[in-house]
């Protein structure tokens, strides 16, 4: 086979493979990802869907129990909140007032957290207010 023809075939095969992989990547990204929402955006939550809920643990709402915790998550900059029931590992920094990310599904009036999906933002890192006040 002529080398230029061989090169063209190789290029077409490579581009074809790359296209198939790219389509698979996009398709699985869309189907496997959860919508990221704050509590105020959960008003029309579909019980069939899972959501990645972000917000702060509302003050006075935390009740720890065997194997998990019940608490309310509120908007970062607002009062709207939803009740969350979670089972699984509770990260060390987790507490009232902390920013959390948790995968939830609506069950009745409560949002049930997926096992071990609770992550609490580490308070160790850089915040603007700690550096710019003087």
């Amino acid at each position, binding site marked *: 086979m002529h080398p230029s023809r061989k090169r063209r075939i190789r290029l077409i095969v490579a581009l074809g493979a790359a296209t198939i992989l790219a389509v698979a990547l996009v398709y699985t990204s869309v189907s*496997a990802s959860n919508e990221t929402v704050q509590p105020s955006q959960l008003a029309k939550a579909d019980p069939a869907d899972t959501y990645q809920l972000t917000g702060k643990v509302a003050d006075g709402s935390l009740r720890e129990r065997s194997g998990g915790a019940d608490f309310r998550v509120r908007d970062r900059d607002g009062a709207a909140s939803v009740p969350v029931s979670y089972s699984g590992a*509770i990260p060390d920094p987790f507490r009232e007032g902390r920013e959390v990310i948790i995968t939830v599904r609506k069950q009745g009036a409560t949002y049930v957290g997926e096992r071990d999906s609770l992550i609490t933002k580490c308070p160790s890192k850089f915040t603007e207010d700690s550096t710019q006040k003087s």
Partner: protein
Amino acid sequence: MATVGRALLILALLAAAYGIVASIYGAVRGRPEWVASGRRAVYAVAALATGAFAILEIAFLRSDFSFQTVWAHSSTTTPTFYKGAAAWSSQEGSLLLWLWLLSLWSSLVLFLTRRQLRRVAPYATAVLLGFAAFFSALLVFKVSPFHTLAMVPAEGKGLNPLLRHPSMMIHPPMLYSGYTLFAIPFAFAIGALIAGQVGAADWIRSTRRFALAAWFFLGIGVMLGARWSYAELGWGGYWAWDPVENASLLPWLTGTAFLHSIMIQEKRGMLKIWNVSLVLATGILAIMGTFLVRSGILDSIHAFGASTLGLPFVMLIGVLIVGSIGLVVYRREALRSENKLDSMLSREAIFLGNNLVLVGLAFVVFWGTFWPLIAEALTGTRRALGPPWFDRYTVPLALVLVLLSGIGPIIAWRRATKANARRNFLVPTALALGLGVVLAAFGAASRPLALLMFVVGGFVVFSVGQEFWRGVGARRAMTNENPAAALLSLVARNRRRYGGYLVHVGMAVLFIGVAASTAFRDARDVQMNPGETARVGDYEFRYVNATSRAQFTNAGNLEKISLGAVVEVRKDGKKVTTLRPDRGFYPSTDDSLGPIGRYLAGEATSEIGLKAGMRKDLWVAMTPNIRAYEPTIEEGNRVFTALQGKVPAEETGAAIGLALRNRIIEPYRNDPPPATFRYIVSPLVTWIWLGALIVFGGGLVAMWPGPDAARRRARARAAARVAEDLGRTQARSTA
């Protein structure tokens, strides 16, 4: 001192700006004295950044709370070791660390190459100084570490207890060394592109060791982060596909690809566009990693508050991307390959496959990390991907990668014949398949992907082992050395090759550990009272009794209250070990929590109980139920608030200590409320850390200057001396 620190940073910015102009002017006009002046500007920036960093460190060690950053990130109760390291737990301190390390590494590379790369080095100097100017400007105009407080507080907020772990103290300098070292091959690649020298291999040779060092340090940083997560965060995992974790992995993956593919450019003059693109992408990803930690654009466990640094970083990254692409396109003719791939069954082809897999992995991780932003841009809705999505792509890619790392060392360059393929592959393949059959018989077949990883990992170990075996045999035949001496001289004579092989073995061991600990892990969360037993896998965990104690600093201040447990582990009725997990409660400086409440409502960290072994890790974390003490805490808050102002502070402090001991610490030990335990029995976790150690040991062997390099340097020095002497003689005769 703060004023001096500020002045040093301003001078560093000015020196960097001057150096950029001097280097470019010298390069364009062919004026070596300006080029040398630009290089000396780098040394000046290093000296100034060292001074600024030293001032900040001294302020931390002296608990000088007039520095705002010291007040916000340290305290008199912070142990001295952690005070020194608290400097880089802040935004501003970590940026200063970045600048300092960058300036040190830049000085080193420019000193080592001061008589080489005369056309490339000035532009590389300008690029490195560009980075230094960027970070100096951030520290001068955006987030100064030398802000002072008008009223000096008596006590600081303290270092976050989560960061009080040895690996977390070394982790940032390692990561930043990796990021800043990757700036060096990036800068020289840009220099080579601008100077039109990109086809030559000398800039690669001069910076290859820095790329290897970057890979080495970044890898250590990533592994230390994983170890910290496993030992300190109380969830029992070591990798969560968090955006910030991913950000550090990305340049490491592309850097690994680069370290492999430059061998093909050096040996065969191929893959020039690919290599220069890889090194540029790696440099940009290193900056992107730094940016992600600070921008807050993605939700991450490592929270980042709102920051004003996002825009400058986006602008820098934009300039780097556009400039890099523009230069590669402009120099595309000079980047044409000198040779073509002879066969798909050759080491070049395997290296190419390895590169495609590594870049594919990097792309998948990049895509998954930035998917929330991509989805928001495309659909208006922010969506996030979880670990299962990452696993779906990374597991098969990792399998292929490990397999290729076993094939690479034993396949011939240019074209493998049937005979040499049979000679090289027969034994490792047979042994690996045999291992698979044995493991399947012992139950590993229930997790096919893990079993496959054991087989390909075994193949790597056997194929590399075969290479060492044959090499030692050949040396012994030639020199009659004993096996150990033959092995040492074999490695010493070709450190790059055999160091690389060790890295491959380490990666195989690491991936076997990851596969086993992920696929065969047993975990259980359970609430227990003393005397109760929980079964996890083949083990029984018995909560024997509660523990409690108050820990004080050398100055006599209460550092933390620890509430824990003694857990006895048994298997088949026989005692295996005793674990002592606890949870440390660090006092908060928030007075609104009450005089007693602040001792239990501050930061809390898990000290895990761990019995690590080559076969299994037994891991336990516990959370005491301190809500049972809420009435006691509220009562104590009421009593001691009422006493404020009526009783001297020292007496109140002593009474609070007594109350904590008598009403909480001792009662907890004697009659604890139920505690929540998380038990994990996980096989081969130790192999992950062992594999990492082998990887870095191999990296060190590969980086260590060999006798050839020493000879080359001696020859270069001699040649330089001769040239200088000739120059002087010529000058005298002209005069």
